[in-house]
């Protein structure tokens, strides 16, 4: 039995490592094999980019080679998957072709700033390494003017990151004694500052206390020099635009005819790709109503590994994913809160506090244990 996992992000790596632990004997006896196909040989811990822009973490802290993260029994293939043929159970890569018995699609999501005219030229972002490094330089020099943090599409990775970066910008400018010279504006596509109602209420109150302005129902369609133009017909000026660019699923999903936007139609409880009982999807690439976040990929990987290993061993696959997600929310450089929620349970909060912030800072280091399947 061959399990092929396509995608070397958090979802793919965790699934591979959990499966390797559960199928130790089967792999040793050559009854099972786990392939991980990834176009990159390194994992970027993307939540670390939020800290990189304020120079709290460096590139070396948030990247590791896959070969040091994967269980030694997982076969790593560094190659670009170009087509998934679900009918014939084949994966075509740039330089090879692989058969599979079970396929796990973990191809993630990506930013597409080029879809908003002018954004690449006039905007900044921290949603990839290059963008974050550029922004680090600009922030260190920014002393006065108007900063706009603009969420330019839903869904996007790490739903709370735009809120966190806004809180941290406020404090960063305060520390540098320039906050009074800076207008800070946060924009969001719908009629509140976050998708979940009660998170929205809390954040709106905290923004107000910090003199952070908000614009809602704000959907940029074009960026010009120093100006955002919206679908609603409004304009907003800026000196520094920190965009959360629109996101799409992988081009591989679109090229394989699985969907038009790259989000894979997935069963919300079993993670089966609709129409196929031997194909599964998890992490950012699914079309599920859950956050595109590492914690979601983590909890889904636990469920998927339990079910897949059961099927391979001839046991009943009874695990179900119930939408569990956990997100830390940094509210300053010394305090944080967190939200925990699932399909049925709305999030609850703790008051922002130092201990939760320390947990987050510690988790930034401990993440590599999660990636290895230990934590």
């Amino acid at each position, binding site marked *: 039995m061959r399990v092929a996992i396509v995608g070397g992000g958090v979802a793919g790596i965790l699934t591979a490592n959990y499966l390797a632990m559960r199928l130790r004997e089967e792999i040793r006896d050559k009854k099972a094999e786990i392939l991980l196909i990834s176009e990159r040989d390194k994992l970027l811990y993307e939540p670390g980019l939020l800290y990189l822009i304020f120079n709290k973490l460096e590139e070396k802290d948030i990247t590791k080679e896959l070969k040091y993260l994967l269980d030694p029994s997982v076969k790593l293939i560094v190659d670009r998957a170009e087509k998934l043929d679900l009918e014939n159970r084949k994966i075509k890569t740039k330089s090879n072709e692989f058969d599979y018995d079970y396929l796990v699609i973990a191809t993630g999501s990506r930013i597409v700033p080029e879809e908003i005219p002018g954004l690449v030229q006039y905007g900044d972002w921290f949603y990839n390494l290059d963008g974050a490094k550029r922004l680090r330089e600009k922030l260190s020099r920014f002393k006065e003017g108007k900063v706009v943090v603009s969420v330019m599409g839903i869904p996007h990775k790490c739903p709370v990151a735009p809120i966190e970066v806004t809180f941290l910008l406020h404090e960063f400018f305060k520390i540098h004694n320039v906050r009074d010279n800076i207008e800070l504006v946060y924009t969001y*596509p719908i*009629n509140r500052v976050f998708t979940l109602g009660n998170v929205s209420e809390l954040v709106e109150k905290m923004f107000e206390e910090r003199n952070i302005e908000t614009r809602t129902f704000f959907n940029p369609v074009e960026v010009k020099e120093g100006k955002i133009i919206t*679908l609603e017909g409004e304009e907003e000026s800026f000196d520094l635009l920190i965009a959360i660019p629109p996101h799409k699923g992988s081009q591989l999903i679109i090229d394989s005819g699985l969907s038009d936007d790259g989000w894979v139609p997935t069963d919300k409880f079993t993670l089966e790709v609709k129409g196929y009982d031997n194909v599964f999807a998890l992490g950012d690439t699914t079309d599920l109503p859950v956050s595109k976040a590492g914690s979601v990929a983590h909890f889904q990987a636990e469920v998927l590994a339990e079910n897949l290993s059961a099927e391979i061993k001839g046991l009943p696959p009874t695990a179900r994913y119930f939408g569990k997600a956990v997100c830390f929310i940094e509210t300053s450089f010394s305090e944080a809160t967190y939200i925990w929620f699932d399909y049925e349970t709305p999030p609850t909060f703790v008051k922002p506090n130092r201990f939760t912030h320390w947990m987050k800072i510690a988790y930034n280091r401990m993440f590599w244990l999660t990636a290895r399947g230990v934590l």
Partner: protein
Amino acid sequence: MIVDARGSYCPGPLMELMKAIKKAPVGEIIEVLSSDASSAKDIPEWVKKAGHELVEVKEEKGYWRIVVRKVK
């Protein structure tokens, strides 16, 4: 034009409508089908802000039909 966003959760149907509005010519009628009740409130609110015309909001069996005309 029909945007069938049934099965999608808030704010999915609204985001789908925005995508459709961007592509549609002025005067086009867009029907959004949504099984998420909050769409019946959020979509009309957005249509008003964006200056389009809300033609109809109707509850069908198990879903909402929200009809919008792009006016600019």
